[in-house]
């Protein structure tokens, strides 16, 4: 049953008619352009070539934007199945739970819907089983709020049950031969954070806290868990929305070219305009009154540099900043990111690869994971 729901999500998607019409008209424009290019053979003039190329580029970027929109699904599609789940839990555990689902109009990409469905499904079951059954409240409520700001998708799950108990979780972890009970709350929190980011899920699947249904390619941006015993628990999950088509900045490090996704770049500064300070083998720069760690990308990647690095790129991800030192800047370009080959999975600094106009493979740096490691 569950499988069939998931199949529905992945195969059928409802598309806004306006989006589709726009896409259609863009394709028509492409066809017109094709005719113009064909005609160009006869009348070779620099001017017309550039004009058509400009138009072509505009159409392509518009098609990219509308294709992204077409792939979006409203979260309303999940509402029915979640309500079914809640009523099933109600009869199974003999409790009385209401589900309040806000933000059903939020649109997300259709491949993400399955993951979100899994996470929500799991959490609702978990809350019903572990929090509501134990709490003596007569009426229980799960409040689900979803929103998306184009970069991140945020889900907030609030429940008024027993709340979440670190001690219980520790005890459960202890049964799995993990000595955690002696840790204080902060350390456990840290540990749980680590669990959330590992891919070794098998053992942890049975634990209440485990949310990681996801395969290795999906990452949580952050998970925040607030809880007051016997009053409420609020879980905030933020999932980054990434697209395989994005803009990137090409930089040169040593003799090699790398791409940095443009949405992670905050600014670019000349190395000579800032002073670097050293503190315990770590280099820092001061930029707009902030102290930012300087990362020599060539050292991170073990590449020999041929010239003195000249550019500093300030990158920002998950509210963490770093200054990447690269040899030189080359160009800004549209790129399609392809996933890493399995042979490269343990190279964390690389997010994927892209093929540039000259046919050469270029590596794309994974900024969030570089920031996490430094």
């Amino acid at each position, binding site marked *: 049953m569950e499988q069939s729901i998931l199949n529905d999500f992945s195969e059928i998607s409802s598309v806004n008619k306006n989006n589709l019409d726009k896409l259609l008209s863009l394709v028509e424009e492409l066809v017109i352009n094709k005719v113009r290019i064909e005609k160009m053979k006869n009348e070779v003039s620099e001017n017309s070539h550039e004009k058509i190329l400009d138009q072509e580029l505009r159409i392509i970027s518009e098609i990219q934007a509308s294709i992204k929109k077409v792939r979006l699904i409203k979260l309303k599609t999940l509402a029915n199945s979640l309500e079914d789940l809640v009523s099933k839990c109600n009869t199974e555990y003999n409790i009385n739970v209401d589900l309040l689902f806000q933000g059903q109009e939020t649109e997300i990409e259709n491949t993400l819907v399955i993951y979100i469905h899994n996470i929500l499904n799991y959490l609702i079951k978990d809350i019903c089983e572990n929090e509501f059954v134990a709490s003596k409240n007569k009426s229980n409520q799960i409040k689900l709020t979803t929103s998306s700001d184009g970069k991140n998708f945020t889900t907030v799950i609030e429940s008024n049950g027993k709340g979440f108990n670190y001690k219980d979780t520790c005890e459960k972890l202890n049964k799995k031969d993990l000595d955690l009970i002696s840790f204080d709350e902060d350390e456990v929190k840290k540990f749980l954070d680590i669990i959330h980011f590992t891919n070794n899920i098998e053992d942890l699947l049975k634990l209440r806290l485990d949310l990681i249904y996801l395969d290795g390619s999906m990452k949580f941006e952050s998970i925040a868990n607030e809880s007051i015993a016997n009053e409420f628990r609020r879980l905030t999950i933020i999932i980054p929305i990434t697209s395989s088509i994005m803009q990137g900045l090409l930089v040169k490090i040593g003799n090699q070219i790398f791409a940095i996704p443009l949405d992670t770049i905050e600014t670019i500064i000349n190395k000579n305009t800032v002073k670097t300070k050293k503190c315990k083998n770590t280099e820092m720069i001061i930029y707009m009154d902030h102290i930012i760690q300087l990362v020599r990308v060539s050292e991170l990647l073990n590449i020999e540099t041929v010239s003195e690095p000249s550019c500093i790129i300030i990158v920002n991800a998950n509210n963490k900043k770093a200054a990447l030192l690269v040899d030189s800047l080359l160009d800004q370009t549209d790129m399609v990111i392809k996933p890493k*080959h399995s042979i490269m999975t343990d190279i964390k600094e690389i997010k994927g690869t892209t093929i540039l106009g000259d046919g050469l*493979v270029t590596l794309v740096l994974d900024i969030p994971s570089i920031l996490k490691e430094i």
Partner: protein
Amino acid sequence: MQILTFLLKDEQFALDIALVDTIQNKMPITPVPNSKKYVIGLISNRGNVLPVIDTSLMLDDTVIDNIYEKFIILNLGNEKLALAVNEIDDVLEIEEKAIENINKDENLSIINVNSNVITFLTYKQLQKI
């Protein structure tokens, strides 16, 4: 079965031709930092990005300064990869029982073709990459 033989320095190697997707001429390789020793880098092939494996490094650890001329693109289950070799030699028809396993620990198999000893790369060996 048919096998494709190729040269690495002076040594002759072979693999099952059913695994071969295409053979390509030398093209620019993008090196991958912090990768395994036997991964030379990446190439693009029909819109896919494939890792290039240094075949001699994969087989033993001695570094030979080799100049590769050809890439054999292999289809291993769901994934493709490219083996860098010096030269493609021949396609031979052999009987399956001609493949002899001489060292079980290292999975080393050889074929004797007209008193030429050819090292045969098995599917298992290639999959380990």
